[in-house]
């Protein structure tokens, strides 16, 4: 019963996991993304945070930034949560589940960045947070318009040629993922990488990249 119609992008399906109506699936495409997220989650679990070195200009002095145990634990927790949400998102076979996992990625990203007690970093985390909050509007609106027009959220049905999803829904979905994953902005801001706690910050990049690859695949297939 569960067979992908369009195998140009995804390839043949390996396996599927039915949870009632929601059927997650592994195709070569989603499996690669899943493994990518899984590897980085494991890295976040096992690695110790790096301690950055600040050099005082005009002298020989330098000092390492210390990361407290409490902060490290919180960042690690958020990074793992972000990794789990990413893994859930990429194998999702249901548009609404995908949007919910994306929203969770957004919240976890705010958590990773905001755990640093630094005025500049917190200022930026706040701006990202506003962006992520606004991002839920196009994200959920995209899913809602999809279900209103087609009557279903299951990708198994949406990917068939019989059902056509309106362009506006696809656009809103992509914009939503952009905003939630902070993809368009994080590269432009130095504060996010300046924050101590390197392996966990990586998760912000990984999750937004992977989610973005997945949403593009969904939009093209629909």
């Amino acid at each position, binding site marked *: 019963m569960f067979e992908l119609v369009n195998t140009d992008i995804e390839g043949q399906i390996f396996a599927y996991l039915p949870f009632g109506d929601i059927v997650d699936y592994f195709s070569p495409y989603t499996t690669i993304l899943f493994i990518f997220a899984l590897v980085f989650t494991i890295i976040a679990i096992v690695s110790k945070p790096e301690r950055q070195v600040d050099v005082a200009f005009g002298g020989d002095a330098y000092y390492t930034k210390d990361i407290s145990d409490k902060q490290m634990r919180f960042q690690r927790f958020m990074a793992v949560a972000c990794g789990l949400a990413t893994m859930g998102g990429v194998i999702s076979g249901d548009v609404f589940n995908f949007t919910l996992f994306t929203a*969770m990625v957004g919240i976890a990203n705010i958590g990773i960045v905001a755990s640093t007690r630094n005025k500049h970093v917190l200022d930026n985390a*706040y701006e990202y*947070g506003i962006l992520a*909050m606004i991002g*839920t509007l196009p994200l*959920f609106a995209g899913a809602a318009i999809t279900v209103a027009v087609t009557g279903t959220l299951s990708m198994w049905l949406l990917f068939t040629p019989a059902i056509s999803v309106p362009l506006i829904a696809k656009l809103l979905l992509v914009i939503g993922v952009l905003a939630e994953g902070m993809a368009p902005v994080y590269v432009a801001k130095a504060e996010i990488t300046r924050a101590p706690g390197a392996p966990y910050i990586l998760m912000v990049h990984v999750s937004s990249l992977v989610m973005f690859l997945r949403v593009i695949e969904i939009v093209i297939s629909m």
Partner: protein
Amino acid sequence: MILQILSEYQTGLFIAFVCIAVAFIALIKEKDDLHRLLLTDIVEIIALVVIALIGTDLAEALILPGLVVGIAELLALAEVYIEKEKLVNSPEKFLHIEIMDSAPVILAVLFLLYGIILSGFTGGAVAGVGMVFYFLCKGSSEKTEIIETVSGYAWVAWVFAFIIFMTLPQYWFFAVMIAGAGIFAKVAAKMSIVGTMRGERNV
């Protein structure tokens, strides 16, 4: 005109998009961080409106997770705002909540009134809880002599009631009333002393 051409759903969607435009313009114009946070809530609500426009059971099932996500993000961002503006007051006492400054008088009075209505032992316990709450919140630096005085008079009233029981049994109802009031005041006073024993130097 436009309402006749479009279906109900499309009309609703059109109005929602107008609201979205208004909300986003407001977000662009607003410079104050806290106000922007509040404005994002309007954006979230319009997102729920767009989902609700579907008007089926599925929409209902989708609104709940949407609402949860919105609230979670609002809470997280509010925390970030508090942290970045350094609005955190480390509590002076172990348990210090804002309501403990504003409400104890009203709540204590309500407890006392309800206790008086109940009267007797139960009423005393209820009124005493009110007083315990009051002293826990306000600290026991207030003068507590009045409690001791009331306690003494309550004891007198109780003894007086028993004398009536033994000597003038035909006035038993009057005696029951006095005894009830007495034990009420006694229990309330004893309970309130528990409240005064909290967190002061000389205890």
